[in-house]
């Protein structure tokens, strides 16, 4: 019987340490690019199309319009991390980060609010895309040289 115990002890010593020192130290397998964590929004890229609100299965994105601004509110407390908003976003303004350490004592912390400036329709007064596509090109730098100098050389 003693022999078997010694054998067991030898196996245990051979295995070494398997426990991850995680909350106090580093983790063994940090999440890679495949991981879908909390969403990250680059607000300058967003055009306010509302595609993310359309496809979200948890319906956590609320859109509120005034004449010149569109407010998108993300109630991330019920996010399922499916990544469909990032998939559908035409400007890639939404990306899935690898942030998973989102434990909190108040679920109102899981909230993102973005304010976008939109153009106003002259007829109906509803807001739509940013001022003009040309302005947006200048912002993104697509034809900033042409916009600055004489066009067509």
């Amino acid at each position, binding site marked *: 019987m003693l022999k078997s115990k010694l054998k067991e002890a030898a196996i245990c010593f051979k295995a070494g340490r*398997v*426990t*991850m020192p*995680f*909350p*106090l130290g580093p*983790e063994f397998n940090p*999440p890679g690019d495949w991981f879908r964590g*909390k969403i990250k*929004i680059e*607000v*300058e890229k*967003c055009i306010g199309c509302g595609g993310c609100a359309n496809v979200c*299965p*948890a*319906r*956590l994105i609320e859109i509120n319009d005034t004449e010149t601004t569109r407010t998108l509110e993300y*109630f*991330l*407390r*019920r*996010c*399922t*991390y*499916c990544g469909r908003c990032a998939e559908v976003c035409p400007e890639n303004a939404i990306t899935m980060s690898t*942030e*998973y*350490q*989102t*434990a*909190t*004592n*108040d*679920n*109102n*912390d*899981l*909230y*993102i*609010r*973005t*304010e*976008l*400036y939109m153009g106003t329709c002259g007829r109906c007064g509803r807001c739509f895309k*940013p*001022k003009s596509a040309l*302005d947006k090109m*200048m*912002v993104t730098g697509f034809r*900033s040289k042409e*916009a600055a100098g004489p066009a067509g050389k």
Partner: protein
Amino acid sequence: MLKKLCAKAFPKSLWVFHCNTGACNGCDIEVINVLTPYYDAERFGIKLVGSPRHADVLLVSGPVTRQVLPALKKLYDAVPNPKLVIAIGSCPTGGNIWFDSYATLGGLDKVLPVNFFVPGCPARPEAILYGVAVALGLAPKKVAPELLAQVHPEQLLQNIEKS
């Protein structure tokens, strides 16, 4: 204040009673994962107990279904004071995709006072460990509400003209 209370009430260990209120079993599997030697939540004194009367902490997973509500309330009353309630996963945190369903109550915080939330669908074992660390005061919480706003277009054009 809650931190101080925690430090006073639980100097050594948290005994946990795990309660499934209609979860898909994903979070439950991750909770079991956390108790394995690889993640080893027992080094913080966390132990799974079989009766709510032995427990300090109620671990709840699942959007609280209408059927389970009376049992859950009984369970909460059976846990001796002082008690903590930890919500595991997106379902008890905010109701997940069933937040407005007639069959669920859409989140645990509408039923019981919840102390800590661990979002995720399912929550990663590391995320649960981190939540435990937050509950024990070993780590600070990292999330905060984000308020983002675009630069006004006129301002943007002015900036471009300047440059």
